[in-house]
């Protein structure tokens, strides 16, 4: 059976820095994959290349059998790819509800709408009239995930969910993940926090300098294996 997302031989450059070297990755429908790695390993680059924010130099990005690497980001949304970007990037001059509505600009059919997102994140519901410029880090992250869900993606890309957030907020946001998955969304999450990654994912893939150095089912990896792969030592 074919995967929902298949990345093959992916090269991405930032100027003359090569950030990804022939990367291979695949995510089956309904699966949650966590990509981990140190700073500069290429995790964010990978997500941006899959979403279409970054051009690829070589290789393929295939969504459910359809090559998408040549499509601009906005067309990939229509096919079912949504990214919550690094730094959340909430639109500051729109209020929370407007941010969510913009997320539905090119929505596919599916379970997610304002009501179901508010139900998933009561925190966001309480802040619906607040300006996007005046949100805490945790509120921003919840709005960013809700905004991505509004397009009813088949594949949800989450970048650095826990970065800069207090542990209790991170816990709340990760608590919502199973409810997203059970409604049929496949999740690819980039996470620095190993315990969170191992806790939420079916499978973990560790990158080092743009290459995969370790991958396996979340339950099968020891902390020592991951540590060695993470630092390349």
């Amino acid at each position, binding site marked *: 059976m074919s995967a929902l997302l298949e990345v093959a031989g992916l090269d991405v450059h930032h100027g003359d820095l090569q950030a990804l070297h022939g990367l291979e990755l695949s995510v089956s429908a309904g699966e949650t994959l966590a990509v981990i790695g140190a700073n500069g390993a290429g995790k964010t680059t990978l997500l941006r290349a899959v*979403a*279409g*924010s970054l051009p690829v130099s070589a290789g393929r990005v295939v969504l459910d059998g359809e090559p998408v690497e040549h499509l*601009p*980001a*906005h*067309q990939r*949304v*229509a096919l079912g790819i*949504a*990214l919550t*970007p690094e730094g959340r*990037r909430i*639109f*500051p*001059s*729109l209020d929370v509800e*407007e*941010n969510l*509505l*913009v*997320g539905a*600009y*090119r*929505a596919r059919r599916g379970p997610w709408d304002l009501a179901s997102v508010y139900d998933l994140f009561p925190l966001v519901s309480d802040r619906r009239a607040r300006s996007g410029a005046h949100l805490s880090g945790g509120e921003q992250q919840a709005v960013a995930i809700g*905004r991505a869900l509004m*397009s009813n993606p088949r594949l949800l890309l989450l970048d650095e969910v826990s970065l800069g957030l207090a542990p209790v907020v991170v816990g709340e946001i990760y608590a919502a993940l199973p409810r997203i998955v059970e409604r049929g969304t496949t999740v690819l999450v980039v996470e620095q926090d190993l315990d969170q990654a191992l806790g939420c994912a079916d499978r973990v893939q560790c990158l080092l300098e743009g290459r995969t150095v370790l991958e396996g089912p979340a339950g099968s990896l020891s902390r020592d294996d991951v540590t060695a792969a993470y630092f390349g030592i």
Partner: protein
Amino acid sequence: MDWVGAVVQGILLGGQYALLACGLSLVFGVMRIVNLAHGVLAVAAAYVVLWLTVEVSLPLLLGVVVVVPLFAALGYALQRGLLNRALRQGELSPLLVSFGIGVVLTNLLQETFSADTRSIAIGDLGTAGVSVGPLTVGVFALVTCAAGVGVIAAVQLFLARTRTGRAMRATSDDPETAQLMGIDQRHLYGLATAIAVGTVALAGAFVGMSTQFSPTYGDLVLIFAFEAVIIGGLGSLWGTLWGGLVLGVAQTVGSQLDPAYGVLAGHVVFLLVLLVRPSGLMPRTVTA
């Protein structure tokens, strides 16, 4: 004419300036482009209305109704064909391209319509007046002002309430993230310029009915529109309305002092605002 009359005339004139400036303000707010062809486009629309009414013998109202969507389509084409390309080359490029469009269009108008001054005949409407207390106010000036306020309110409502308007504000905030929402910014920029050029075509038609114009009259239109935008605050539509009113009142009150000083008084107020409040009277609300 007394001072109160001058102020009232100024407010009515300001409505026209606001109408002229609306598109300039919108395009700047959404794309950070200063469209230097804005004034010439207004004059071009006046010529098209003139041609439609004189040569094709369309009724004036129908001429105006035709010219607005025609120019909106032209705006969309200019954005998709030229300005979007220029935007990829950096900040200066769209400015230069719009300057080029303005020069070409001015020369095209001169070739086609000669450099003679013309005006669009509006018959009795030009002289009709209504009494408001002790004052008599021109009906045409009232209609123009109402159109200005109405257009600005409509565009503001569009930005605030519609799906496409929200997408424009999101794109203005962060184009890259907006694309991740499925927004095609090239199309959206095309729509913004379509609205801008459509509204300036309407403004141009009113200018053509209220005054004598020639192909180079666009320079003056651009300056007035630009001053209204700056006085009100870049990127703010309600600010642009206020900017237009302030400019209009400054000009009529200046003329009241001495007929030769009207336009100069407007420029002086513009400079004073730049000095005292460089961000304008109502900065950045178009996207707020």
